[in-house]
């Protein structure tokens, strides 16, 4: 109750404070932060912001950036228009030279365009649109892999890890693609389809997209897939749709050998486990490292920062880092590394610092390495991703095996009642 009162007082005060603030104070470095905090993407935007705040505090405990305390100028990006407009505000009103954002592909495209036109650095920590870095924008960078990377890893896992354990060759695998129709789901699915078909000759049985906000019953698609009898269901879910598909697959006794997902939404979110408990057992989700992850597999400097990051997240949220945290926070950490090295946010020098960065896999948070391409995209192979699996209420790291103490179970998935 007291909390509320304080909050409302703060709110009341804020009403009287004008929107503009003084330019960067000496001793502080202000970063523009753009995340969807309202509207349908709010739930994930909040998580990303949390990750950013956690790492910001870590940075400040470790000497800040360029010797200055890091602060945020925060803006809400509900839709593309607002994202672009708020990017403008951050740049001209808040005077930021770097914007960090924006989680969703529909937002990052518009916001980065604005930043580039102002010759302001745009540091993207998550949006996965493969076209993001192919627009020839000089000041735009992305630390996370793109959808092609997600698709690449998923198919890699299916072909290299699952197929042998099924005693099948990759080209014998029958795979069904199902996905929500956002830019993320479609991007990942299409790149996975392409690699599965072209590189491994897997047999695609079906591809179906749906709008996750209007999906109320998955039974028809479950029945359809059941008749097609796939080995693998590649399903990019967003929220409730993942829970619905899994629950109704169980109800219909739809048996397949594995379900693979990518990203922190849907099957990759904590909510999935909360919703289904032990029924969730067996689902794979491509993510950043989770429990079971062997810190020792990282390089010494990577071990230390990863451990610190986990502790910080634990302290703030009381749990293991979630996907959103793990994209936004480590992305910000890389920005600190670059800024400290460049000593300035002047775009050319900043760019030189980015390009000169060459850290091997395992040297920073999530076990990532760094090697940016000319287009400002961190190399897919440096941004190590991990396959996690739901095991008894937890998403644990199961692949690549050298990074984890846990092993993938239920391969192939047995009958529904025998996945305990």
């Amino acid at each position, binding site marked *: 109750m007291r909390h509320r009162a304080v909050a409302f007082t703060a709110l009341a005060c804020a009403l009287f404070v004008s929107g503009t603030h003084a330019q960067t104070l000496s001793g502080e470095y202000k970063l523009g932060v753009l995340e969807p905090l309202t509207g349908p993407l*709010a739930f994930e935007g909040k998580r990303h912001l949390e990750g950013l705040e956690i790492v910001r505090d870590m940075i400040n405990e470790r000497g800040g950036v360029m010797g200055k305390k890091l602060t945020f100028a925060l803006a809400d990006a509900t839709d593309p228009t607002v994202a672009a407009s708020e990017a403008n505000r951050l740049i001209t009103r808040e005077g930021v030279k770097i914007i960090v954002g924006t989680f969703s592909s529909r937002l990052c495209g518009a916001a980065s365009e604005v930043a580039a036109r102002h010759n302001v650095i745009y540091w993207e920590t998550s949006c996965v649109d493969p076209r993001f870095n192919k627009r020839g924008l000089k000041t735009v960078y992305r630390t996370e892999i793109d959808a092609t990377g997600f698709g690449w890893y998923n198919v890699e896992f299916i072909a290299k890890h699952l197929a042998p354990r099924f005693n099948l060759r990759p080209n014998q695998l029958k795979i069904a693609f199902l996905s929500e129709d956002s830019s993320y789901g479609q991007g990942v699915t299409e790149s996975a389809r392409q690699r599965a078909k072209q590189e491994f000759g897997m047999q695609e049985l079906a591809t179906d997209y749906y709008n996750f906000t*209007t999906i109320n019953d998955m039974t028809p698609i479950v029945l359809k897939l059941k*008749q*097609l009898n796939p080995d693998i269901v590649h399903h990019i879910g967003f929220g*409730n749709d993942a829970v619905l598909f899994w*629950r*109704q697959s169980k109800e219909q006794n739809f048996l397949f050998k594995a379900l693979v997902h990518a990203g922190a939404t849907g099957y990759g979110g904590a909510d999935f486990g909360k919703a289904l408990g032990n029924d969730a057992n067996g689902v794979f989700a491509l993510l950043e490292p989770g429990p079971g992850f062997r810190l020792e597999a990282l390089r010494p400097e990577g071990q230390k920062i990863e451990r610190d990051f986990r502790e910080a997240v634990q302290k703030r949220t009381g749990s293991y880092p979630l996907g959103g945290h793990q994209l936004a926070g480590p992305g910000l950490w890389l920005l600190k590394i670059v800024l400290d090295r460049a000593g300035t946010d002047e775009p050319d020098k900043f760019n030189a610092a980015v390009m000169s960065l060459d850290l091997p896999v395992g040297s920073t948070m999530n076990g990532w390495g760094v090697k940016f391409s000319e287009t400002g995209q961190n190399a897919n192979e440096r941004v190590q991703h991990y396959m996690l699996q739901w095991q008894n209420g937890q998403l644990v790291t199961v692949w690549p095996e050298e990074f984890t103490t846990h092993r993938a179970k239920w391969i192939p998935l047995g009958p529904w009642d025998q996945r305990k």
Partner: protein
Amino acid sequence: MDPARPLGPAQIDAVAQLGVSTILLGGIYALIAVGLTLIFGIMRVVNFAHGEFLMLGMYLAFWSFTLWRVDPYFVLVVAIPLFFVVGLVTYVLVMKGVITASHNVQIFTTFGLSILLQNVALVAWSGDFRFVRPWHLSVALRIGGTTFNLSQVVAFVIAVVLTVALVAFMKWTHTGRVMRATAQDRDAATLMGIDTDRVYRLTFAIGIAAVGAAGVLVAPLYSVYPTAGLQFVLLSYVVVVLGGLGDMAGALIGSLIVAAVEVAGSYVFGIAWKEIFYFLLFILVLVFRPAGLFGQRGSETLGA
């Protein structure tokens, strides 16, 4: 393998299961739409905030379950009177002022209400997806080759009970007759000594109580988040128009039709196009049978 190939036992099971799914899904739609058809039918008010009351009902179920482990079915006992009061308050604060205003004013007022409630929920409870997991959600009943989810069966049964109760209420109680009479001729109702303002207040409160109850019941089946109501509100209008204004039994049948179109369309053409089917159906019905598939011709223009 084509799902439309000659019928084998597996296909027969699939078709039976699709039928079951249609009925269960239709039950959910009916549950949500029955309050809307009451409000739209009697008051002729387009309530775009209908989905938000559903969302509030879902949150009630969520918090009761999370904080006190109360099963949604017990929450229902509290939810109905609670949402009845919520409806009364909303009527007095918001709807009363626009009941005689133009449709535009009503549409945009309730739209404002929808934005307001969504964001109150966002501020109060954050945008996280929440889940309610009562034991009965994971119980699947099997009959022949078909499967029934217990929660959905209960939701369907309650939908039918609620619809039947409302139909009975409207048909055989004096208050129900008064409500219908007011919808058909407000002045004539006044001449019978009916306080029409009170009728509208009551109608709105019952409608909101129904949708609040629906929210509690569907909370386990779907996830709970501030914009959870959006996906049902347009759909509810499809159902209401199909069933005929203010016709509860029509709404139940309309729900089954929408569900059938959705389920069959998803199965045959792919889940991707399901909205197209029912929105086109909606436009066709609007154009060719504005009184609904079962409504009496001309009833949609009364009191409008």
